[in-house]
């Protein structure tokens, strides 16, 4: 976790005093999970209070219908939030963690016609909201970006953009009072920063269209930058100005760049369907930047699943062998192990304490020991009756599971 601590501190330091007070006022014993892939946007739940022994069965605490989609739930300031589709409307719902009861719900019209290639995914929301400083930002499948008051649900501002072939899937990011999203469709788009309070555009980079990967913000060589896979590139863009710092051409079949990058020390790790896993080091020379590929691993390849790093292990799910778990050494990309093939169609992974929580679309939650030696599943739980593509989210000692239409809280204790 050491490499991420400074990033975390920086984010928190950027909060305004009222925001800090608000957090304290609502402070729940559980760590917040306010955005895509958690507090540090890396799939790591470091403080997860795992049970002494994983039980034979999980206890279902509650289950409520929230609507269609694979958008992951988020948790902030004592509330759970979901962004879903109900008929022709997209709904934002705040729920009580103890009962799943609705605290507030807001919706807006979002008629959407899917590309036939994507109908398997459903018309539900794909991007995960982000809660920051008392506001929730949502990005719907057709490209509607909204801001609501997180406490009351009162709409703050809304903007409409297009969407690429398979629908909007990049999850908004908040950095220093700006909400950053990749807006647009197949032919044009822009990585854009909006003022979180007003929605006013602060900067935009129009060099490429959106992919399905979500951006992250990192600090490299002292420069804060937004890093993402765009439609045909990997890019680093100044978080302050939106200026392009560096880019690498990056192509996948049908322009399906999906994997959220992860930072390891000063390298960024990427992959995409049919491509190896690569580690890229951006290097600053005065005002200019270059990049160096420090390693690549051709044994495995990620498609829709983003990897996690913890305990100096890069754990992920490869599309090779019809679905295979793997573990790499993030410092040099060496393959530590690969599991047998045919494990799943995809996997949503969270590193929680000493285990990996792995939710596969067949509605199985596998708990595996974080091992540098082999795939070591401890337990496998059936947690839904419909496909589960959203990420599992830790809530206290429980685990939130979003299936095709429901949200449920499961308790392992």
């Amino acid at each position, binding site marked *: 976790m050491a490499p991420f601590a400074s990033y975390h501190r920086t984010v928190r330091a950027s909060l305004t005093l009222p925001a800090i007070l608000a957090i304290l006022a609502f402070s729940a014993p559980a760590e917040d999970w306010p955005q895509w892939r958690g507090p540090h946007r890396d799939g790591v739940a470091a403080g997860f209070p795992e049970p002494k022994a994983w039980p034979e069965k999980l206890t279902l605490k509650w289950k409520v219908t929230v609507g269609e989609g694979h958008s992951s739930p988020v948790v902030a300031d004592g509330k759970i939030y979901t962004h879903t589709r109900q008929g022709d409307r997209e709904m934002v719902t705040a729920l009580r963690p103890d009962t799943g009861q609705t605290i507030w719900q807001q919706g807006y019209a979002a008629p959407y016609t899917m590309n*036939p*290639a*994507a*109908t*398997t995914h459903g018309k539900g929301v794909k991007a995960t909201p982000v809660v920051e400083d008392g506001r929730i930002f949502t990005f719907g499948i057709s490209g509607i970006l909204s801001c609501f008051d997180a406490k009351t649900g009162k709409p703050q501002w809304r903007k409409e953009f297009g969407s690429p072939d398979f629908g909007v899937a990049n999850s908004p990011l908040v950095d220093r009072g700006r909400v950053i999203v990749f807006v647009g469709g197949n032919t044009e788009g822009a990585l854009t920063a909006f003022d979180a309070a007003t929605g006013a555009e602060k900067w935009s980079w129009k060099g490429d269209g959106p992919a399905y990967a979500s951006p992250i913000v990192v600090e490299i060589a002292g420069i804060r930058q937004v890093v993402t896979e765009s439609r045909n590139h990997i890019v680093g863009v100044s978080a302050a100005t939106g200026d392009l710092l560096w880019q690498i051409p990056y192509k996948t079949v049908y322009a399906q760049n999906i994997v959220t990058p992860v930072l390891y020390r000063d390298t960024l790790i990427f992959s995409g369907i049919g491509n190896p896993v690569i580690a890229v080091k951006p290097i600053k020379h005065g005002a200019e930047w270059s990049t160096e590929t420090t390693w690549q691993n051709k044994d495995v390849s990620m498609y829709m699943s983003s990897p996690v790093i913890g305990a100096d292990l890069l754990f992920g799910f490869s599309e090779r062998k*019809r*679905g295979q778990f793997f573990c790499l050494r993030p410092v040099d990309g060496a393959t530590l192990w690969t599991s047998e*093939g*045919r*494990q*799943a*169609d*995809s996997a949503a992974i969270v590193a929680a304490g000493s285990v990996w929580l792995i939710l596969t679309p*067949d509605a199985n939650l596998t708990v595996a020991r974080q091992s540098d030696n082999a795939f070591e599943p401890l337990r496998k739980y059936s947690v839904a*009756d*419909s*496909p589960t593509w959203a990420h599992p989210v830790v809530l206290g000692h429980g685990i939130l599971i979003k299936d095709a239409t429901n949200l449920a809280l499961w308790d392992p204790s």
Partner: protein
Amino acid sequence: MKLLAALLASAALQAASLEWPQFAGPHRNFTSDARGLANSWPASGPKKLWSRDLGEGYSGITVDGAVLYTMYRRGSDEVTLAAATGTGKTIWEHTEKASFRSGMAMENGPGPHATPLVTADAVYAVGILAHLVCLDKATGKVLWSHDLWREFNGTPMDRGYSVSPIAWKNTVIMKVGGAGHALMAFNQKDGKVVWQKQDFANSPSSPILIKVDGQDQLVAVMGDEVVGIDPDTGGLLWKHPHTTSWHLNIALPLWTADNTLFVSSAYNGGSAALELHVVNGKTQVKELWNTNRMRVHIGNLLRVGDTLYGSSGDFGPAPLTALDAKTGKVLWQDRTLPKATFLYADGKLIAVDEDGNLSLATVSPAGLKVLSRAELLRSNAWTAPSLVGTTLYVRDRHSLMAFDLR
């Protein structure tokens, strides 16, 4: 005279239940009445009788006495092969030009996909361009042919035509797709159109013939629905929606004893169980259940007792999946038998999985038990096996083989 010939042909088909005259075998459901199969094989697999080179294709193997038929691709041609069942040696070949048309996407395999049909008199074969030929069994000479796409403007299929012909009385029935001729019956003797009916879009799935409370029906899974057709006239008896993302229904429907029809598709289609009854001459269709947990892609469904088995999934792990046939609830999934096509005989499952393993297994509501397994074929092995007596015929995209399963 014509009627008599038809009756004889149909009687021959019924009597020869140990033959494999068409796609999916004598009962068109991948079950065989064969007995006396061994309960295990040596590690190297069952006794190999012969093996021969074969070209590309997923076309299955039809067996009629001492002759087997299948199709393969050679360069830009498609070949219908007649070979000796005892040796695998070629008896005759019939070749058709089959250059891909623009817009065809054959990355999953260039075909041919359909399995020949053999009747008392002739062999019927159809390639990826929907060119149907009727061939003399002894010589391979073309007796008649139809280009189902060009002549009748059938639904274009960008992965190639794949519907296996089916015989009914003196006709051969084909799924063509399109206004006025979604289904067509051709006279077996001369290829003349006997009837052409319906407006549905076509799908790759092959049709079956069933008897519902005494009434003969042709069941065809079309682009967005499953339909029941009077096989004598082409008249519509019933239809029920069954949709997928790409109008791609591929798996063979399954009709079972308690008047239940099962359909299954990948591409978000899922599976449904339909109970059919004929009441006062009208077919009543009741959907018993519908689930997205079983999505058979290119394979088949099997029912043993009250359990339904199939490989669920398309390009992912596609584990063998067992459902309660009465409720549609998943009983188990097991990836030790990956995406497979299979037949059932003598209480055993004989499966070819896409990785190229030939497996002998038992299945029950409690689980899968693999008795023996040998890697005898090469990936992607998507062609279902054929069984005649105790001789098993399998192929991949390189070879054709026969094994003795005693």
